[in-house]
């Protein structure tokens, strides 16, 4: 791909804008523009948010019948069926609605580890998903989470908001502990009056209390949940030997460990079990789950998410 092809597309939302520095450099913006082209082809012809909800409403496409109940609009009573079956049934139609996407990014201290830091990739993935959502005129909100719900970016539509998203995410810093369950409770409380939609939770899922409660809470809150676990390569396969004191960056807990080959194998087994446990938990609950490494390219991760299907149409 030549430089011209990698540059922001003429007339695109990024052209002529001042891009935030840091996590979102010129290269990121070029790759984001390329990603937009790819995702646009995938949702060709969708000029507006058109995700079908399961709610029955004023749509035009027939969905089902149900018994008439007092108060139902008589205009949707199926008189033909009444003539044939002498039962009062109303016609149900799928209602077209725009999608509400909430991107939750874990900004706990553990996300600052790794080379590059896991938070960088998490922010880039979040920005890319937000950009695609905005481009599809979905309602996109971005929120940081640690041991509670952090700052958030109010829901917005349209690609013109992407720079706000980028600046917001560029300012995110890794600090604090992880408590996904507390954050999920905060999130549900904040969205009690809002429509339910898609929640993308990007985290390393290193929560001493576990991730299960958080995911269950979101699911019970009738959100469609996507879990993206970000790990650092050195966390999966640490290059440590000898007597060391491991210091937990979030809890401050320090424990003396003698890292032998055997101890290292034990650690790797436990780490793999954590990853597999999350994957298995999500699979059982029809939650999309992805495990990525912090040194992966964000666009490759986003495309992988797209290819998995179901996230955005």
């Amino acid at each position, binding site marked *: 791909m030549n430089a011209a092809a990698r540059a922001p597309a003429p007339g695109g939302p990024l052209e002529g804008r001042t891009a935030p520095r840091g996590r979102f450099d010129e290269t990121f913006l070029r790759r984001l523009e390329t990603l937009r082209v790819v995702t646009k082809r995938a949702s060709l012809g969708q000029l507006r948010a058109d995700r079908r909800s399961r709610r029955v409403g004023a749509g035009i496409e027939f969905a089902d019948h149900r018994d008439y109940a007092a108060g139902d609009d008589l205009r949707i009573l199926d008189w033909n069926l009444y003539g044939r079956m002498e039962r009062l049934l109303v016609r149900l139609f799928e209602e077209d609605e725009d999608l509400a996407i909430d991107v939750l990014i874990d900004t706990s201290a*553990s996300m600052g*580890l*790794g080379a590059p830091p*896991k938070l960088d990739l998490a922010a880039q993935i979040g920005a890319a998903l937000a950009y695609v959502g905005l481009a599809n005129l979905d309602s996109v909100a971005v929120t940081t989470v640690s041991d509670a719900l952090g700052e958030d970016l109010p829901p917005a539509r349209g690609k013109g908001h992407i720079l706000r998203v980028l600046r917001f995410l560029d300012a995110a810093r890794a600090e604090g502990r992880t408590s996904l369950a507390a954050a999920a409770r905060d999130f549900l409380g904040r969205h009690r009056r809002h429509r339910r939609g898609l929640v993308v939770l990007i985290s*390393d899922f*290193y929560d*001493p209390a576990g991730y299960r409660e958080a995911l269950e809470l979101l699911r019970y809150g009738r959100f469609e949940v996507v879990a993206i676990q970000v790990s*650092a390569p050195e*966390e999966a396969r*640490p290059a*440590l*030997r*000898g*007597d*060391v*004191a*491991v*210091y*937990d*960056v*979030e*809890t401050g*807990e*320090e*424990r*003396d*460990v*003698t890292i*032998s080959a*055997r*101890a290292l*194998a*034990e*650690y790797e087994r*436990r*780490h793999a079990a*954590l990853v597999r446990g999350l994957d298995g938990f999500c699979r059982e609950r029809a939650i999309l789950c992805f495990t990525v490494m912090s040194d992966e390219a964000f666009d490759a991760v986003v495309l992988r998410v797209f290819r998995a299907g179901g996230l955005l149409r």
Partner: protein
Amino acid sequence: MGIFPAWGLALEGLSAGAAVGIALAGVAILTGLYLLKPRRRRVVVAFAPLWLPGAGERRSERWARHLRRWLSLALQAAVFGLLLLAAADPRSRAADRAGRSFVVLIDRSASMSATDEPGTRLGAARARARALVSGLGPADRALVASFAADVSAESGFETDARRLERAVDAVRPCEEPADLGRALFFAAAVLRGQPHPTLVLVSDGRFSDDARANAAALLDRAPAGASATPSLADVDVRWAPVGRRARNVALLAFAARRLPADPTSAYAAVTVRNFGAAATTVTLEISAGAASALVDRVHIALAPGETRRHVLPDVSAPGARLAARLLEGDDLPLDDRAYATVPGVERLRILRVGAPNLFLDGALLSLGETAAVHGARPEAVESTRARWTSYDVVIFDGVAPVPAPKTGHFLYLAPRGPGSPFPGRGVLRDPVFSDTRHGHPLLRQLDLGDVNIAEAERLTLEAGDVAVASSFGAPLIAARERPGLRVAALAFDVRRSDLPMRAAFPLLVANALGWLAGSNARELPPALVGSVVRVPAPRGATRVDVRDPTGARASWPVTGDAALVPIRRAGFYRVGDVTLAANAADVVESDTAPVRTLALGGRTLSPPDPPLGHGRRPLATWALLVAAALLLLEWVTTHRRWTV
């Protein structure tokens, strides 16, 4: 300075007490630090619960971990000990002495070219000398010198083994005989006043009796004072022998000369000797001229130690160059070749002044065409004075002109009166030839033992005059040699003796004429390599050109009427217009039989001490190097986390 007598070591740096104290303190501190719980390296992780203390560590692994820590302690202790050792700087007590002063004297004489050692004897000597200088102690100094007929210092007193080895390697063989006395004199001179003087002679031990006697005198001489003649009495003299076997046949002599009785004829003689322990047959070839035309070839059978003489009876070509060689190879090729020149024929111009003397005239007639004799009456002696220097020889028979001539060549027969160069002190009745100088040219091939003389004049000699033959101290034949003047005199009238009746008389006359005329200068016998030959120079010449056998040219100064030319190698020299043959044959040098014991004076020389072993590098240097290696090992083990 602490000393460990049991180990032969002395500490140059830290004292023994300080070293022990620091060692104890260091070991205590190191051990204490290792016994303390080590401060672990802090590693920040994202999720500590994934790490379990001692996860899966077996008992054996725990012990191995402890062992690795102790190994690390051992490495640190070893490094500390080595550094302490370097700080203490131990030296061997032998090397710690004030330092020995060595003179390594390498024999490079002709016999050292023998090939019975790998390479040559000189090659083996160089190897011995190299081992010697590379094994000297740190405080030792050495000077490398080589010798044959003279001595060359190849280096000054050095402590750098590499320079000394280069000096040893620079020693080259030569064809000269060894002058041990001169070499030891040199060594005694340079070792005078040096601490712990030691002389190591690296040689095959083949030296002439004269050389041994001179050397023994140096060893036996009283210790040298500040201004006394150098002595080796206080010097530790050692001998490193080389040489393995005796397998050599040598051409000991080769010469051509004209027959005194028939100067028109010449013959050549060569002397061959078998120095080997086994009988052998050699092939001798004699060639002549620049084209090396073969003139003789004979096979000579030689028993062990046998000497044979081969004569080539008629060598007709005057001035020809002759070369003899042995075809069979042996251990010393140097003496398998010999050179000689056939003397040319010169016509002497002789003036005989005196009364008729048939005996003298007969002797002069025997010279044939080699002499042109002019005669003069005694009373006309003064009229001929102006022409004396134009003759090769002037014979005064019973005449002694006054004043005696100061320049020229003169033979006096029975000189008397105030003009006699050797004033008479009376008459000697019935003298006999009791003492003769056989080496003098006047007496060459002469035997005067039973000559009867009625009476002779008691001649008085001046300083520098030579009594060639005498009767109990009274000179009967005298010779005088001064710049521009040569005089020979017979103290008796030959007619009052039976000498003219003997064959010795014409020979004596021929010898006298030849010596006086300097014909020897034109017929120089072959010279020995290592000698200095007096070659007469043309009148008035201040320098002569010398071309050696290799073709190298040099201009040599003339001293008096001759040039003193040192002979360095065998072959033909050209000195001015004189051709001189030079031979390397020397009965001592050619005898390559190994010498087992070398005794000089009252001392039997023992071999040199073996090298000190640790070379010239102090122990501290090795300690530092090992410490550096251990530190590197420690760094690697730490970096690879084998010991942490």
